């Protein structure tokens, strides 16, 4: 029986952190991609991370519902944005708590639009800094996804952050 989920690449961030890194030369032999992240950034405030495909900085659409603090939810819509958000805990959040994200990216080799769905969380031991998010989006354009670049919106992605990219086969 063939393996349907295959680890394409995995990154563990080392001492000092990095501001950005790239999963490059993504094989075009799968149908879908799934990105898992566990990450913090080295700055405080509501500063998270982001990713872009193929170094493209336009044409992303994204919508999400987010719950935070206690019983508070809101919706955000961003059409024609320059990136897709990735939740990462900040330095003033609970020590050693890492934000976690799962992105399912469909039909990434297509020349049509490539939809994605996600679930993300910035966990905390304080309800006032706890965020949970369910989102969806799309990358416009006609190019297949061959690279995925993840960045901190401020400071660096902190040491011990981890990112895993899986390819999902339909055969």
């Amino acid at each position: 029986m063939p393996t349907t989920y295959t680890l394409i690449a995995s990154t563990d961030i080392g001492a000092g952190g990095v501001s950005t890194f790239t999963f490059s030369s993504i094989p075009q032999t799968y149908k879908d991609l799934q990105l898992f992240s566990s990450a913090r950034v080295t700055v405080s405030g509501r500063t998270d991370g982001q990713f872009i495909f193929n170094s493209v900085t336009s044409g992303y659409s994204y919508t999400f519902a987010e719950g935070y603090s206690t019983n508070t939810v809101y919706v955000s819509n961003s059409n024609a944005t320059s990136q897709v958000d990735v939740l990462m805990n900040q330095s003033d959040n609970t020590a050693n708590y890492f934000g976690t994200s799962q992105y399912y990216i469909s039909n990434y080799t297509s020349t049509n639009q490539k939809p994605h769905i996600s679930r993300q969380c910035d966990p905390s031991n304080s309800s006032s800094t706890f965020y949970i998010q369910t989102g969806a989006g799309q990358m416009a354009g006609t190019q297949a996804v061959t690279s995925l670049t993840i960045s901190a919106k401020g400071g660096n992605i902190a040491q011990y952050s981890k990112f895993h990219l899986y390819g999902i086969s339909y055969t």
Partner: protein
Amino acid sequence: MPTTYEILATTTLSSTANTYTFSSISQSYTDIRLVANMGLTGQGTIFFRCNSDTGNNYYWEALMAVGSSSTPTSAIQGSGEGRCIVTAGNQQTSSTNGYSLLTVDFMSYTFSLNKPFFYEYGFVPATALYNTKRTACGNYTSGTAISSVSIITDSNFVAGTTFTLFGILKA
């Protein structure tokens, strides 16, 4: 390492259709996962049924982000409809605006009691008015194991729409 996700069936529509059914689903797995990348010919409701069952055996609750940024997040409950609705008729529009992505996880699908499911649906076209993200969980309350799953719309799925079913083993 054992293979835990196995492909059971996948299809790409060669022409428009309003229904696709995975039938004779193997009973050899622990859980099953449906992945659908869907374009519609026009506005339409999308829903699924198990075992062609139109009885009141579907109960679910969804957290939604719908429409423009001024629209609040809402939670809905569904029951008594003989189906589980994935998106309402005024939410997914023509495929010229983009494709939607749906994943449905049916846990313990061979169980003789209630079978829980969890779905995520996203549609983020170029027009924010139609942005939709739903995260839902529910139960299929029939005592019969799930041997078929149908994805149905009151519009039509466009050619190129893909439906895939994975079997998931616990080891």
